[in-house]
């Protein structure tokens, strides 16, 4: 028998009917879901593990549940496979994305039992829309397999233009009394493929119509919006952040954890409230990070949590950031500079402030820093990459520093700040209580620490992405963001590289995993797929 349960780290690991049961909405979450369900386009930005996919799924399910009354049909489309698309076609992303959108729309229509009309030939790519797979489904697969044979052209004539797609949707909506199709794009952009970003935002802008609503979840750090898309005009940007200073913050994080962990850890959370509170602050509002930390010290004993904070937030949390430097060697100087900047410039000064705050009853602590808006572009790009991996969060622009100059405020992950303390669980709550958003360490337009970044050669978009992909596929599965429990099972089946896992078939999991039922085997396969695709996307 086996007493170990897996923690599910990603929304992709959850069954549809589990999602609403695990939803612990903050006021902001509810507001975001409301906006996602409305007609105006929303770009939802957040680092990995902050819950973007989860909120998209909640919006999708709630729209489904209210379809009879509101007649808004949600269609969830994930572009997480964009790293696999490598063809000679200069418009490859637009073609692939349109094919994918058509396929998902057709599937959603079938799910609702709507009969196909003449427009189904547009959405299927052929005059025989009932054949399976449809032409567009086959093309979608071809694009996603193209990394194996990147020189082979793909025939894209069957893919509709944006205008043809919009017309088809309009006809479908009119005929079936659908007021709008709400497209929910997940993993909408590949952070290291500016070309994909340009084509996505152009498509996002062009798709808008009275019958189509567009929403997208993206990571921080977009560099290319293309020529026609303007963020301030064409969408509402919502940053997915949980405000640590909100009185409900800890309660909210506790509820999220209690719904996911097993009874022993749940009891430990209730018993060791102050230790849990410190851990909840350390993760800076990132539920996935919280679940991972809890899986590492499920009994929440203070000495173990202290050790975890000091080891994870000093080195572990950097592993994803540093592995980016290995994968995208063109960005290495900036990625390395970013880590160096935080570790040698920002954290020591925040630590000084923390120590003063602990000594002085009136003292204020900080986990904020400010960078002048005229800082070099290379510095800003390095900070974008830090935001992508969740080490920092970009706050408000146009904040005034001490000399009335304007700049951007950033928040460093509170765990990194606390890890500089000898006894994090003892001082953590006091430091949070004394946090003041007005206290930030400042870096002017020409701070000496910028020099190495200023001199770094940046190859934004200049990477050989196919070569990057090939190297990633050869990496061991140990690098994937999965629990030890899941990795053990993958090794049991015999997978050793990311590439093997990408090509794997579900039946292998069901046949080869011992003492794991088909449902759970499928769940492991899904978790592995999501981790592989996430790994490949950055």
């Amino acid at each position, binding site marked *: *028998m086996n007493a170990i349960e897996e923690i599910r780290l990603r929304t992709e690991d959850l069954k549809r009917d589990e999602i609403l049961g695990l939803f612990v909405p903050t006021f902001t979450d509810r507001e975001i879901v409301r906006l996602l369900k409305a007609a105006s386009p929303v770009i939802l930005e957040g680092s990995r593990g902050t819950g973007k996919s989860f909120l998209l799924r909640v919006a999708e399910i709630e729209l489904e549940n209210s379809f009879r009354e509101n007649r808004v049909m949600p269609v969830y489309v994930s572009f997480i496979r964009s790293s696999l698309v490598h063809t000679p076609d200069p418009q490859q992303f637009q073609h692939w994305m349109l094919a994918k959108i058509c396929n998902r729309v057709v599937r959603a229509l079938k799910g609702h039992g709507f009969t196909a009309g003449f427009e189904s030939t547009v959405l299927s790519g052929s005059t025989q829309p009932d054949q399976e797979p449809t032409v567009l489904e086959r093309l979608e697969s071809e694009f996603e397999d193209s990394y194996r044979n990147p020189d082979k052209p793909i025939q894209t004539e069957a893919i509709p233009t944006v205008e043809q797609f919009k017309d088809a949707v309009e006809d479908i909506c009119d005929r079936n009394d659908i007021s709008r199709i709400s497209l929910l794009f997940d993993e909408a952009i590949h952070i290291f493929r500016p070309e994909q970003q340009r084509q996505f935002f152009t498509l996002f802008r062009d798709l808008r119509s009275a019958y189509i609503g567009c929403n997208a979840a993206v990571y921080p750090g977009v560099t290319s919006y293309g020529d026609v898309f303007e963020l301030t005009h064409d969408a509402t940007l919502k940053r997915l952040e949980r405000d640590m200073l909100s009185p409900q913050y800890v309660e909210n994080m506790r509820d999220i954890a209690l719904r996911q962990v097993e009874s022993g850890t749940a009891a430990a959370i209730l*018993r060791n409230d102050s*230790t849990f509170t410190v851990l909840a602050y350390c993760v800076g509002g990132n539920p996935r990070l919280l679940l991972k930390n809890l899986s590492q010290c499920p009994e929440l004993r203070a000495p173990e949590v202290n050790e975890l904070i000091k080891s994870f937030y000093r080195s572990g949390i950097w592993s994803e950031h540093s592995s980016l430097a290995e994968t995208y060697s063109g960005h290495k100087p900036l990625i390395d500079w970013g880590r160096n900047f935080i570790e040698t410039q920002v954290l020591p000064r925040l630590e000084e402030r923390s120590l003063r705050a602990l000594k002085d009853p009136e003292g204020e602590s900080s986990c904020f820093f400010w960078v002048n808006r005229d800082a070099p572009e290379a510095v800003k790009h390095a900070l974008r990459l830090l935001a992508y991996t969740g080490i920092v969060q970009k706050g408000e622009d146009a904040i005034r520093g001490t000399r009335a100059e304007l700049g951007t405020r950033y928040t460093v992950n509170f765990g990194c700040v606390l890890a500089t303390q000898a006894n994090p669980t003892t001082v953590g*709550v006091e430091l949070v209580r004394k946090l003041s958003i007005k206290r930030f360490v400042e870096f002017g337009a020409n701070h000496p620490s910028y020099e190495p970044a200023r001199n770094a050669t940046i190859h934004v978009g200049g990477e050989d992405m196919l070569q990057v992909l090939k190297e990633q596929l050869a990496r061991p599965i140990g690098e994937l963001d999965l629990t030890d429990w899941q990795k053990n099972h993958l090794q049991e089946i015999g997978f050793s590289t990311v590439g093997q896992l990408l090509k794997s078939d579900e039946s292998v999991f069901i046949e080869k995993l011992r003492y794991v039922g088909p449902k759970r085997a499928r769940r492991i396969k899904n978790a592995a797929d999501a981790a592989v695709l996430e790994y490949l996307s950055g």
Partner: protein
Amino acid sequence: MDLKEHYDKISEAARAVRQDSLLDSAPLEAAHAAIGEIRLWQEILGARPEATIFDQIVSALELGLFALVSGLYRQAYGSLRLTVELTAGLCWFSTNRLDLAEWQSGERDLIWKEITNEDEGVLSPRFRKAFFPELNEERKYNGLNKKLYRELSEYVHGNARTWAGQDDIKYDEQLHRAWFDRLGTYMVVTTVLLSLRYLQEVDDTAVGKLAPYLHSRVGHVAPITKYLRERLPPAPAPASPAPASAQGGAATPETPATPAPTNSPQGPD
């Protein structure tokens, strides 16, 4: 088939497991101390009709322990599940005399979903408002109780993940320890549950007897410690050592929950 030989063989395997199981006696001693706590509640509530269920609870716990040290893990987990069910049932019947009589005469089932219902069950706001209005953490513990029951049920129903290994009789340290962890969780939930239902109804002597166990098990539940402080006179001398406790269930309790920060964020300069 030689039945005697067959059962001797099983018995011998169980005996070998027992030897390994008893090498570390601390968790077992803590489990027996936990049974002592349940007996104390029984002694205090003995006059109530539903208190007879304590005998069944203790019996399920003791047989569960025996199954555990004998390597009959599935049975041990099943027994613990019965314990969880009966304890919630006891509190449920305390307000449903007719249901109790029907259950005792075999005319009524104990329905888990009903007795742990979020609005009407034994750890619901309705119960709390009636018996311990200040103990406003009932929902958390109801969630914990249901989670525990669901996990234990996996062993009863033989869910796939509980079959990782030949189900033969041999010592399994992981399963052995995990059972005590779950017993610890059971004791925390049970202490909250029985406190919620009965603490304000029993006399001062009983509260005095229970107090050390309550501090040890649920010292982190602020409304209970506050209630004890108000109800009991200050201790005259340094406290004697805390009672033994089930492993995982009552590690040194921490200081009560620290309130969330109250300083609201300042706006930009």
